[in-house]
């Protein structure tokens, strides 16, 4: 009797423990986010000694209203500016990558491996490496403090990886389909538009979500390019609200939540493409 009866609960106990540990870790991981969220929804006086003290508990939206319409740097403006920068900064390099990537995938040219090498090394370049000349260049052509300047900058930094990313994707498509279309008399362009582009939509989704988030989350380029407060993007507003000596945690946590809402929301909706884009070629080669 001892054997099977004792074995069964033993296995179950182990499974239960693994699940408890995993879920415990998962929830514990959220504590910093939870703390900021709780503070954002409560008056500062209630949480000054710790957001986990739940009495008194008077939830309010006042902090969000304060951050949204702030006089120093309203998040309503910051988020609008972030969108004005991030949307074109995503689609310009995507367009370039969609076409150039196809060229790189289907046509051979000498020194191809060196192009890969330089893209890899380019990815390792810190933003600080271009900051001073970019600042001077933009100042001299009147694009400092202009969204256009920042959009061009982000586009230029997005193009190398997106071209390569799209090229890798196109290479996974069977060339026979395109050849068949050409045999049937379709022009080069028609083949690309009608056959290749529709098949590449998942790759476009991955590029969009990765590049959009990269631009939205960027702080350094925005900081050096957009110096006047009325041009501030969301990530800049977060630091503008930080205060000189003490931090206004009520406003700041509301601003933090508002700023992370867009990338996190996008991640939740396009998670599949984000993860696939990130991992895809990392592991499968």
């Amino acid at each position: 009797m001892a054997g099977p009866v004792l074995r069964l609960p033993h296995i179950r106990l182990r499974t239960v423990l693994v699940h408890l540990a995993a879920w415990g870790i998962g929830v514990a991981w959220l504590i910093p986010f939870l703390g900021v969220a709780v503070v954002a929804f409560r008056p500062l006086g209630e949480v000054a000694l710790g957001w986990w003290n739940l009495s008194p508990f008077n939830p309010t939206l006042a902090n969000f209203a304060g951050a949204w319409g702030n006089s120093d740097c309203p998040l309503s403006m910051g988020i609008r500016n972030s969108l004005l920068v991030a949307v074109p900064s995503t689609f310009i390099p995507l367009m370039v990558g969609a076409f150039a990537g196809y060229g790189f995938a289907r046509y051979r040219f000498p020194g191809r491996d060196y192009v890969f090498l330089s893209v890899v090394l380019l990815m390792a370049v810190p933003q600080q490496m271009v900051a001073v000349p970019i600042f001077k260049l933009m100042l001299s052509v009147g694009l400092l403090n202009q969204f256009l300047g920042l959009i061009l900058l982000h586009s230029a930094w997005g193009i190398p990886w997106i071209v390569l990313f799209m090229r890798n994707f196109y290479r996974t498509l069977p060339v026979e389909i395109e050849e068949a279309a050409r045999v049937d008399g379709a022009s080069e362009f028609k083949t690309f538009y009608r056959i290749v582009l529709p098949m590449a939509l998942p790759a476009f989704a991955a590029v969009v979500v990765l590049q959009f988030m990269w631009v939205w989350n960027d702080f350094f380029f925005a900081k050096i390019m957009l110096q006047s407060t009325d041009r501030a993007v969301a990530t800049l507003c977060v630091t503008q609200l930080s205060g000189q000596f003490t931090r206004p945690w009520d406003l700041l946590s509301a601003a933090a939540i508002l700023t992370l809402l867009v990338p996190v929301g996008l991640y939740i909706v396009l998670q599949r493409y984000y993860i696939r884009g990130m991992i895809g070629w990392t592991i499968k080669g």
Partner: protein
Amino acid sequence: MPAAILLLLLVFYPIATTIILSFFSGSSFVGLGNYGAILQDPATLNPNGLSGGPPYGTLVNNLLWIVIHLPLSLFTGLVLAVLLQRVRGASIIKSFIFLGMVTPLIVIGVLLGFTIEAPVGFVPAFFGSIGLPSLDVNWIAHPTTLLFGLILGSVWSWTGFSTIIYSAGLTTIPKDYFEAARVDGASEWHIFTRITWPLLRPVTLVIVTMSLLWELKLFDIILGATNAGGGVGGAADVLALQMYRYAFVALPPESNKAAAVACMLLLFTTLVAGFLFRRLLTGDAPKPRAARRLATSTRAGE
């Protein structure tokens, strides 16, 4: 063609200009003078840090980040990925852990500052409640707690990367390997050390490289949690922040010293990227595949 001009103007030209700037002072050529001045500056390497504690200087701090953050985030991600293999709802737990990767790093910085500040934050109160009053202090206000608090906090935010990549790596290992090993009576530990870990080696290599680049480029988190000075006494200062101060805070700006710091950073990151490139080339992966794999993942890792 317009794309090539954009790249030339906004990527290659500024990189070249910064390299040139780093060898000049004003309009006169000084060779490695700027580099020498920076390395002798206590803000970069603080000789009193060894005995007196932080600030250690930016160079040491970036190194500390590598020494502590790299193994911790790698190991935690691996353990979580293995643990989550057999857990129901693992994808939800992974999303929780990955949240730190999609949140803007400047917000992560603010969040970490909030979490380690007393009395508002959770971390000091937690250590107070488990009977460690020496850690129940305002971590932001003390150099040692600030530096190590931010290092550990950045492990929290970055672990999502290694967890996700390791999880994906685990799915590429054929299940038969594990089953065959179990049939042969191998212990779980043996299976891990003889099958899982060796087969994950290429994945580990990619994670290590991405993590190193991330630790070297560290900027937003420090600024978000403290200020442009790297917090109390400059305890959490890093190279990228030092460069920013020279170029955009100092009056008059010290562009040449800023360029030299940036070039030092570039030297380190290029060494790291080049190292991985060579390892992948000499490894089992064919040449173009390795390059491609590397390029796509480098961007995603940022």
